[in-house]
């Protein structure tokens, strides 16, 4: 009787072991195959930052507003503090103010509508290393506790101010 029970226990144990190995194998595969961040999505986020920045800087202002000059040219004027003025809705404003409003318009119509969090900065570094912001942030990338930046894709352009350099930076948060 005892031998019979032991035999039966052994049989059940074998079955249980086989089933456990099978389930372990399936679960392991399921965990391994569950998603890794798509390379393509990463690549396209980086390209989005690059494309937006390149397009913004190439954009020509309205002929009546600022003689059709490109935004990159106006940014250099702003950075150098030439005192240049442009027309904004019929009013004469400083070129930096014109840039603030225009770049706002461009970003609001695109990446803000596309539900992306971003940070647009244009600043120059003086020889002393002090940074002066020229255009303000529009929509900040914030970590959960309200400080710092989340993981970003960033692209930067450099505009010559002679002798300084202006950095124009667009960061996308993901």
């Amino acid at each position, binding site marked *: 009787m005892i031998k*019979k029970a032991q*035999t*039966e226990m052994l*049989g059940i144990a*074998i*079955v249980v072991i*086989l*089933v456990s*190995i*099978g389930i372990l*194998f*399936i679960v392991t*595969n399921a965990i391994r*195959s569950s998603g890794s961040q798509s*390379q*393509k999505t990463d*690549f396209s986020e980086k390209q989005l930052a690059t494309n937006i920045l390149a397009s913004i800087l190439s954009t020509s202002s309205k002929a009546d507003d600022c003689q059709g000059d490109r935004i990159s040219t106006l940014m250099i004027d702003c950075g150098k503090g030439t005192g240049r003025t442009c027309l904004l809705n019929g009013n004469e404003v400083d070129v930096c103010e014109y840039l603030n409003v225009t770049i706002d318009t461009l970003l609001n119509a695109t990446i803000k509508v596309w539900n992306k969090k971003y940070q647009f900065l244009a600043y120059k570094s003086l020889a002393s290393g002090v940074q002066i912001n020229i255009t303000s942030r529009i929509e900040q990338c914030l970590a959960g506790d309200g400080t710092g930046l989340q993981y970003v894709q960033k692209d930067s352009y450099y505009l010559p101010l002679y002798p300084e350099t202006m950095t124009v930076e667009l960061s996308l948060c993901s």
Partner: protein
Amino acid sequence: MRFPGKKKGAIEIQFNWIFVLIVGALILVFFINISNSQRKAADQKLAFDLLSKVDLIMSGALTIPKTGQVFDMPNIPFGLECSRISMSGVSRQFPDRIIFGPDQLSGKKLIVVSQDWTVPFKISNFLYLTTSGVRYVVVANADEPAQFQTATDFLNSLPDNITKEVGNLSPTNGINDKNNYKIKLIFLSDVFPLPYQKLIDLQLPDFIKRMPNSAVSGIYIDGSSSPITVRFIKKETDLSGGVVRLNFDGEPIPVYKEPMIFGAIFAENKDEFNCSYLKAFKKLHYVSEVYRERELSISNDYSTTYSYRTECKVAGIRAPEEINAISIAATTPTQSIGTISTNEGAISYANANALRSSCAPIY
């Protein structure tokens, strides 16, 4: 004490074990089937991931033309057929890309080169795929220094990272076996004129004779003809005498510009080259159509909205007819390379005039 039915108990235990064995076997078979299907799925996933990587590599190469880039790959061969790459039953189509390469890419280093094809405006990037295991030999005799120099100059114009050399095919002092899985022989008409009989009679090194016929191919580039032609060469075994020899594969194909000549060098054979060749001319046809319509619109605007720009309305600044001629010629490329070349020259001239006059360029 004897228990009645002891024999019955003995039989019962045996049946129990048989039962356990049968059920155990069924359960094992069940899980082995699952693991097999998981393994196949894993192979397909690996193939999918690798092909995605190759796709990304090609996308990157397209943005930086005229560069040869080397990428480490797992040593898993994949197939290339016109604009399709495949591995383990998974394939990827690239209908918009023009790719030249061997039918099988095998080895740890994948080499990707891209080159712009312009006629005279940019039509497309040609992509050349190869591996370090494919050997490219420009055939020349070191005993003839002038021809050897020509061959060396041509060799230097080929992308840097590929396995390439200048050498001769003499069985005694020709090129040696370097254990390549494919070899491509390049004959230049300036260096090694190849009438049919000379090709048939050409002696080959033993290691080339031993290689499978599909692993050895060649290309004859005839620069003396106008337009330049390429003619593919295959290795075959003469059925009657068992002699291994080279022979032409098809008729000469007229090509247009260096990127197409490189395409013929990298392509596996005449049929694969022809597929990408026709794709390229098809693309030329459709891109030229767009440029033609653009020219007509710009000409119209200079006559109406911008009529004050009198310098942009003069003859010799726009070229819609010439572009249209190229678009039509592209539909019959083997007969029309001369037409394309003539009209390209006219378009370049008109474009230079447009730029000089600060008018909208043609390209």
